């Protein structure tokens, strides 16, 4: 009886752990695979993909720019040009957890963010907005488009955004 219950409990624990692990691995894989459509994202650092139709149920009133990042070689700097309406910066871990967020209503001027790996003691020049994030993940920039007349203007704005070695 002890052997029976012991085997049942051990199997339950192992199966549960395997399920949780599979969920993590498949989630990271799906996130990466969703970005594989945009070669510039997969190409490596410094490449923002200015995507138009990343999912069939995407918001029509947002423009997205997306980049994969890896901070093994040091922090990265994201710049967003001055704009006059809502914008945001979302950072997801490689497992798609929301780990950082910045947003504004426009009128703030050009914004610079330094993506720094948690625990990285490297000094960042003062006055920079340091975003503490895991070593690897995805950065998603959003810009609001108020009507079709604005689309081309906002699109030009987001194409001026950059991600570079800090």
């Amino acid at each position, binding site marked *: 009886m002890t052997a029976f219950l012991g085997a049942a409990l051990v*199997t*339950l624990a192992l199966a549960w752990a395997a399920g949780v692990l599979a969920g993590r691995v498949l989630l990271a894989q799906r996130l990466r695979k969703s970005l594989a459509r945009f070669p510039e994202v997969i190409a490596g650092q410094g490449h923002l993909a200015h995507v138009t139709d990343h999912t069939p149920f995407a918001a029509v009133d947002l423009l997205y720019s997306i980049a994969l990042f890896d901070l093994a070689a040091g922090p990265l700097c994201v710049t967003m040009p001055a704009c006059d309406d809502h914008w945001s910066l979302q950072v997801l871990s490689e497992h798609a957890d929301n780990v950082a967020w910045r947003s504004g209503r426009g009128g703030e001027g050009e914004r610079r963010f330094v993506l720094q790996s948690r625990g990285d003691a490297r000094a960042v020049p003062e006055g920079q907005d340091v975003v503490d994030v895991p070593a690897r993940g995805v950065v998603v920039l959003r810009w609001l488009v108020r009507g079709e007349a604005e689309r081309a203007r906002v699109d030009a704005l987001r194409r001026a955004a950059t991600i570079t070695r800090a």
Partner: protein
Amino acid sequence: MTASVSLVGGVLLGFAAALVLGMAAGRRALRRHLVHDATGWRMARDIGTTATHPLVRIALAPAYPLTNEHALYLFADDPRDRALQWAALRGGGPLFRHLDGSRHYRIVSDRGSLAADWWSVTVYDTAGLMPGPASSCSVLDTGIVPAADGTFVIDIAAARPPGSRNWLAAPPGAPFLVAMRIYGPAPGLVLPRFEEA
């Protein structure tokens, strides 16, 4: 019972228990993820966090969902449609029941304007975004014509109802979906109702 028989039996019971408990946890997480509340919306809760079931997270990963603190994603639902649209999840879309393009629905905010940074309402057909300019299937907060007291109604029907100030065209006679996105919601935000007119 010999030792090997109890071991095999124990392993089988362990697997069965993991399966049953895992499915129960999934159902619970799904119910929590998609709450069909009194306002008539199905609201995605806890998305973008570890509180959501891995299967839902895997499905929604291509949409890079924000947390509820930063954005609310509301989906209108017709409980008469018994089939949840799981296929949408495969494309990175929400789980929903279809609305009926031959009926007249409306979004009612009778507490005035919404306390949020900005919001929008978009009509999708079963494949996702409909062809044509964004203005024909989506409306932003700034595109709404409110009443003098700030309250507003958005009609969603195939044809513009008489006297409607705010109208979004539904695909005539076809199944469809309505999504409302509220970005930067204030803590005390009162959700508008979704109802059939």
